[in-house]
């Protein structure tokens, strides 16, 4: 699915595209592009788990975040934890006790709004893997310029110039925030206007995934 918007104003997202099931080995895979930002995600599982990592009452969810270049460090671990916690909230891990679910996220290109792209891509890959989930999620990044204008889905240049960058993840049932991650300084009022601006598009994204599913069996 490609949702191109005619007017590329500030309160619009860049063109988005997603493809599922493009890798043959993993149980689920997806690539997600937001403008030039592109991420590919593979999901393995539920599969056997190492005894040391085994949980009695739920599946062990692991996220590996691979940057485009270089070796992963603390900031990658931070992203991993953020995405893992987000996934644990939506995946019904209790249905697969003592098994493992592995999510590998490979950044292909970062042109801004990387975190939201990763979350969206992961959600689509989980969907492709057919893992039981309580709902879907949609992530939207926005940036606050120095004048206080909100730019949705900013490019890396816009991120650099921004006063603050905020990323939200909404769930599809009640559209409530399940993850919020922010950089920079902003007022509480600005926070809420960002939430509202993002929520509007999070809602659109949440409605669309079925259209993107291309793996319909006959």
């Amino acid at each position: 699915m490609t949702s191109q918007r005619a007017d590329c104003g500030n309160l619009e997202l860049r063109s988005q595209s997603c493809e599922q099931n493009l890798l043959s080995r993993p149980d689920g895979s997806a690539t997600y592009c937001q403008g030039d930002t592109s991420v590919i995600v593979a999901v393995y599982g539920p599969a056997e788990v190492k005894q040391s990592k085994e949980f009695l009452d739920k599946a062990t969810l692991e996220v590996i975040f691979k940057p485009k270049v270089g070796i992963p460090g603390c900031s990658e671990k931070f992203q991993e934890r953020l995405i893992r916690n987000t996934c644990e909230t939506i995946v019904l891990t209790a249905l697969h006790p003592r098994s493992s679910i592995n999510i590998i996220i490979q950044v292909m290109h970062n042109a801004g709004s990387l975190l939201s792209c990763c979350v969206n891509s992961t959600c689509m890959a989980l969907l492709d893997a057919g893992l039981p989930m309580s709902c879907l999620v949609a992530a939207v990044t926005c940036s606050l310029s120095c004048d206080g204008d909100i730019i949705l889905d900013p490019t890396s240049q816009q991120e650099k110039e921004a006063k603050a960058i905020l990323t939200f993840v909404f769930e599809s049932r009640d559209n409530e925030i399940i993850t919020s991650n922010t950089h920079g300084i902003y007022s509480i009022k600005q926070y809420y206007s960002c939430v509202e601006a993002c929520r509007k598009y999070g809602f659109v994204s949440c409605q669309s995934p079925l259209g993107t599913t291309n793996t319909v069996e006959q």
Partner: protein
Amino acid sequence: MAVDIRLPRKRKRGELTSEPRGLVSPGDVITSDTGFMRGHGTYMEDDKLHASVAGVVERVNKLICVQPLKTRYNGEVGDVVVGRITEVGQKRWRVDTNSRLNSILMLSSVNLPGGELRRRSAEDELMMRQYLSEGDLISAEVQSVFSDGALSLHTRSLKYGKLGQGILLKVSPSLVKRRKTHFHNLPCGASVILGNNGYIWISPTVENESSDTAGGFIQNLEPVSEDERGVIARLRNCILGLAEHRLMLYDTSVLYTYETSTKYEIHELLKPDVMEEVIHLARLKLEQEGT
């Protein structure tokens, strides 16, 4: 040597003749009627039944399930599977059958050389690796499903057992149509085992059925003729093409595709546009037949 170079092809979306009805995504409310029973792929919250996977809603009387679009193999008793031995353990082999947990083949559920009614001795336990060792491929039937979803297999029939020469293909399990038999000696000169678990085995047809004393543990290692290998390679391409285009796999579909493909060289089938045409023709043929 000429090298065939082509531009990246925009993948064709599966031409959906009609949007399947009852398509849901996780979190969608299926019903708020409490009179229904909760099946696979659903969960209950606030007295409402929600979907937990993306898929198609199926209703059997009072039971509501969501059949996921794509899943690992969920075994059922009686299924024919192709698997690979991953571990030799105490009185059992562990087998990878593309399901969530490794399957188990008990020493007591195989036919050992020397007849069906032989007692299993301690020696047999030590000999286990001689019968089947890590990496060997087998065909087997699902005997029972454990409470945690793991499968117990058996090979207590002459048609099951260790696989000899041939090639293994892995496709989505949902593409394999359930039939009476999954063993086919195709008229083109090769045998196919369409495992319910999405593992497909293609091998040259063996003329004379081997005597039962071997118990299915002896591999025929005689060289396979080039013709036979050509047939196998063509079958492989056809089956992968069918899977790529999301057509169900069963003897007729495989055979028709094989037949329509004969006007091309085997290697030409690797080109996506050629394959697309072959599949299209095969599909038309299938629709004509009304199967």
